[in-house]
């Protein structure tokens, strides 16, 4: 296990159901710590912890893009 923290800046979110969609989609990914997923509506950011041996931040960003939300910037930090 090597956990890392990802901060993903999204396009401005406009509907609260977007938050539900994004957080359920990200939670469903293998290697993402379900408890840590946090989608901030007003600052349009997703924050989560993930296991970098199982999944990459690019894969997580892809899952969000596939929902139709633009990912503007990703940042990875040690937990």
């Amino acid at each position, binding site marked *: 296990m090597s956990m890392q923290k990802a901060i993903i800046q999204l396009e*401005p979110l*406009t*509907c*609260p*159901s977007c938050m*539900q*969609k994004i957080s*359920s*989609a990200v939670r*469903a990914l293998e290697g993402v710590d379900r408890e840590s997923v946090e989608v*901030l*509506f*007003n*600052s349009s*950011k997703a924050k989560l912890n993930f296991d970098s041996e199982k999944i990459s931040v690019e894969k997580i960003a892809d899952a969000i*893009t*596939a*929902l*139709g939300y633009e990912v503007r910037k990703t940042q990875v930090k040690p937990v």
Partner: protein
Amino acid sequence: MQKFILARKKHITIISAVLILTAFVSKLAFGNPYIFELTMIIASVFGVAPIAIQAFQALKVKVVSIDVLVTVAVTGALLIKNYEESAIVTFLFLFGAYLEQRTLNKTRSAIRELTEMAPESALKLMENGEFEEVNVDEVAEGDILLVKTGAKVPVDGTVLKGEGYVNESTITGEPVPVNKTAGSGVYAGTILENGTLQIVAERVGEDTTFGKIIELVEKAQDSKSKTERFIDRFSRYYTPAVLAFAVLVWVISRDLELAITILVLGCPGALVIGVPVSNVAGIGNGARNGILMKGSEVVQTFSRVDTMVFDKTGTLTSGKPRVAETEFYTEDPDEALDYLASVEKESDHPLARAIVEHVGERKSCTVENTNVVKGEGIVATVNGHRVAVGNVALMERENVPLDDKMRKDIERLAQSGSSLVLTSVDGELKILMGIRDQVRPGVRDNLRKLERLGVKSLILLSGDNQRTVDLTARELGLTEARGNMLPEDKSAYIAELQDKGHIVAFVGDGVNDSPSLALADIGIAMGGGTDVAIETSDVVLMNSDFSRLPHALGLAKATARNMLQNIAIAVGVVLVLLAGVFLSDWVNMSIGMFVHEASILAVILNGMRLLGYKRR
């Protein structure tokens, strides 16, 4: 394909509008129902595509979103051959979403301005001894950086060399630039107005004070109060419930159109978006004015505060002793002041510093044979005269005679809570000074404003003696004042107030009053953006400006009211529309969608009013 369609939502909205217009024109001009219907069908299919994709994606992650309701409704309308309605509903939904995004961006402008102030690059000292511009993410602790005039300080650190004036308003809210020299601390996000500094990085990125403030404000805007959590849970079941209700209506009444209309009317948009919008605007306004409120629960509680408890030193008073009154008993005050200043310049006693600051630059005299009398003062020889500076006890030791007027002055100043400094030259009293920690300017007016905002009791708790505390209380018109209080006495007193059912805010400087700040319903720290203050309190007044306090309370009240208004608008609109469907026949799908989108815009616009909130 999906991405292609979603990325072109704006174009689709425009095409859909053009098609609908074409349809109406063709109907009016040529009276041709086939072209009319065909164009409307194309408009519907075009318009529903992005909505259907979003609905499908939502269903994939088991969320029944508004998109699902709209998609089902439009499909249903196409099935019953009501092409006009289906086209108009999709257009209104898309157009509404576009307007929402535009206005939401405005509401979020306050926080965006804040994040945009974050520094992006830095001039870093490289191995070759040159400074090179790098991204701020590449700066590590211990790096040496150069800051030029007009540039942002990229990290928290200490000045190595150079001098300059830094505008720290982003951190402290204080607009007057602060002088920085070697050894001074500097904060990320502040601006060097003139001069050049070399600094060593101590904290970078999100660990800087500025980074923490941004993170706090972002979190605060999304933090949820109990009401909001309730609405969240509610809306998760609400949308599927609307779907079920519509099916039920269809089964019972066999009226597909009615069922579809209910689907459209049931969209919970305004309800879900109303409260976060008030929140972001209110907290954003605060952030812009140097007031940090940690989330909507804090805003709610703060708006109901009826008792405010204040610490004295550093909160109501400036925390720095100043010369308040001076009496002269000499024909030549200048000479006496020169002697006094020369003696006091050599001392670092707080009272001596207050005096030096008060008298300003004076002619300096030669001071010899300085003798410090512990607890009483200083005796020295100045220009050949024996000068004693100290309290009454020192004057007695020096056998300085005091006449009636002098005794009266001493008595009066002592009564006012001042510390006394007397100056005698060759055994004669020349100057009497009263030094005290004075009330900050404007505090009295601001306390009255707080009362007008509905605070019933203003209470002063202080470690000072009861007499000093009583004086301050009388001067400021406080409800109650207690002296000789230790930090634990203060928190015990606050607990007592809470037991009596009061909602208590404690206002302190955030350093020595942490227990009270934590215990009070709302802890308000008057701090210059220190870490302790930011972490232990609920509300931070970024510069120690007391006048922000009424603004903060007024803003909290306005924000709480705004949230209630938005909930009322949202619920009211749904009720009126539902009543319209069942009790009359003016409501159809398009009107339903129109009113629904209008109500969403109404709550966003209502929230935006908070951005302009000002306390007069």
